[in-house]
């Protein structure tokens, strides 16, 4: 407590005298949902960022300078995020911030524009993030990119008539809107759609109604309690085959979902040595999707920082942003990312659940 009060005091002083010498260490911020309903994801993301920083320091820092990260908790809430954003910019003066969660990213986007801080979003996918701020860089494609790939695949390989079940929350609604748009564009029809509430556990009437409409397949966009839905699908005879998105992974492994499809953003593993180091450092059995994405996104930030420093510039939101866009292509074993705009273009995979494996059916590159 005393420490933070001291820091606040120091920040007050700093803000009064902006002409302070550039600090020797490179400081990044990360604003993650460390508490609240999304905390389990937030912590995985935290590990990814921390790991990238530790690796960079182990390799002698960036341009000889040590790197440090300051984590802060957004609770997944917009007002808390605004407080945390200001805390970080004022107390620690960070030029770049790694973020998560659609509502949080949208809430801090205008602040990022005003205060010229680079915000890097490696996980939230709501379409509005594409244009929310010139200082917002998305290292993951948006919902609409995935939906366009999925719609084209579905009309080719599954059928022309679909029904949609979507979660009545940001990700689900975007998923429904985008899938409907692209599916209709390629000549399909949506014959029914039903929302389910976030955190709901009784899907029976929704599933019955959808099955009763007899679509060729069902598009399901939910982010929670897939297992329960899979159980309840199992009670309905001849439930149509279903397709999902990146969030649908927990559908995999149930008897009732065999033969279903999902899209997945192509995300590979780092080399064996790095992977082993990660598992050792955090005592985990795997390096999960979010850990890999945040590790990769942090590396992108560090690479940009290196290039800024190499050209003799100072680390600031504008300089880092210019560096990211001018480097443009970031290849790593995890992903090959191209920035034509603020938002990365990346390949999307279609997977099918076949018994005990998620089989790769095809890989596509979404159009801009």
């Amino acid at each position, binding site marked *: 407590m005393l420490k933070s009060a001291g820091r606040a005091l120091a920040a007050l002083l700093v803000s009064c005298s902006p002409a302070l010498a550039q600090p020797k260490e490179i400081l990044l911020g990360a604003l993650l949902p460390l508490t609240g*309903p999304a*905390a*389990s994801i937030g912590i995985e993301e935290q590990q990814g960022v921390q790991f990238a920083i530790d690796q960079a320091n182990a390799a002698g820092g960036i341009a000889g300078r040590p790197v440090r990260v300051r984590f802060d908790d957004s609770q997944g809430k917009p007002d808390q995020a605004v407080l945390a954003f200001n805390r970080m910019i004022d107390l620690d003066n960070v030029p770049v911030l790694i973020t998560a969660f659609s509502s949080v990213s949208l809430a801090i986007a205008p602040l990022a524009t005003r205060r010229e801080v680079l915000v890097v979003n490696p996980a939230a996918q709501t379409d509005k993030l594409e244009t929310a701020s010139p200082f917002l860089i998305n290292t993951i494609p948006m919902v609409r990119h995935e939906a366009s790939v999925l719609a084209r695949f579905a009309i080719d390989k599954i059928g022309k008539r679909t029904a949609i079940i979507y979660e*009545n929350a940001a990700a689900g609604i975007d998923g429904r809107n985008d899938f409907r748009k692209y599916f209709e564009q390629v000549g399909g029809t949506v014959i029914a759609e*039903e*929302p*389910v*509430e976030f*955190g*709901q*556990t*009784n899907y*029976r*009437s*929704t599933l*019955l*109604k959808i099955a*009763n409409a007899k679509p060729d397949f069902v598009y399901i966009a939910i982010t*929670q*309690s897939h*297992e*329960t839905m899979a*159980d*309840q699908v*199992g*009670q*309905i*005879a001849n439930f149509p085959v279903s397709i999902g998105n990146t969030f649908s992974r927990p559908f995999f492994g149930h008897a009732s979902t065999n033969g279903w499809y999902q899209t997945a953003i192509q995300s590979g593993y780092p080399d064996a040595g790095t992977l082993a180091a990660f598992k050792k450092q955090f005592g985990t059995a795997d390096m999960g999707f979010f850990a890999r994405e945040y590790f990769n996104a942090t590396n992108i930030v560090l690479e940009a920082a290196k290039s800024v420093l190499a050209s003799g510039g100072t680390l600031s939101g504008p300089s880092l942003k210019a560096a990211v866009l001018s480097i443009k292509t970031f290849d790593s074993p995890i992903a090959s990312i191209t920035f034509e705009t603020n938002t990365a273009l990346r390949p999307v995979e279609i997977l099918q659940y076949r018994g005990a494996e998620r089989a790769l059916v095809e890989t596509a590159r979404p159009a801009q």
Partner: protein
Amino acid sequence: MLYLQLLIDGVVSGCAIGIVSISFSYFYATTGIFHVAHAGIYTLSGYLAWWMVGLGTPFAAALALAILAAVVVGYLTQRLLYRPLEESGATPLVLMIASIGLLTVLQNVVAILFSPNIVQFDLPWRLSHTAIGPIALSLPQAILGVLSLLLFAGLVLFSHHTAAGKRIRAVASNRELAEITRLDPKRVFAQVLAISSGIVAVPGVLVGVDQALQPYTSLLVLLTAVVAMIAGGIGSLTGAFGMSIVLAVIQSLSVAVMPGRWSVAAVFGTFILFILLRPEGLIRSRFSRAI
């Protein structure tokens, strides 16, 4: 066929809500305390049973222990919270706020001790289901329906045909009189809350077995149950149970004709309008306790 299946599903969820409704109503009609924390006991019992099953306890034993735990928590709530508050002359508003506090505590104790996430019971039989003609019913649904009816009948019999039940009704109908006739309302209140809590543990566990457990959604279940209680006539167990089933069936069937996303708003919106236009209630028993 769709409608028949929706109807049956509605009846089963209605039974679960009905048990929440009668157990809430039993305590409320006796004491006049709006016991919001009832939802917390519902949540707590579900997660307790889940935790014990995870440790290898047979399901029946886990259910029994969860009921026992709920009884204890209910009894302690009356003894350590409501009774001291009433003795210090707290208004119903204060009791209500304390109850909201307790609900928050119970939900988050569950989230901290067990899991803040949605969890499922590790019981293979929960997926088995039977088809009676065109109707599919999962085993937990069947158990839930049967147990609920038994509990409902049991509570009605207890309330009307046992000495303890009659004593409780005497206290409910006239607290001052009961005090004079040495019926000790304070003891009776604690007993009632213990009984109500034990009863609400049953749907708390079984709905979790059938679907999944969630730490924060029980308030909505409770509020629906309270709407059913008011619509069915406060103090009438049969009315509360019956209206719960009616409400659940309407909600289930309404999905077939209108987008499901409006169903919560529809239930509560209709209720608010109804109260605005007809404050004396559906059954003309103008009930206005405190607050």
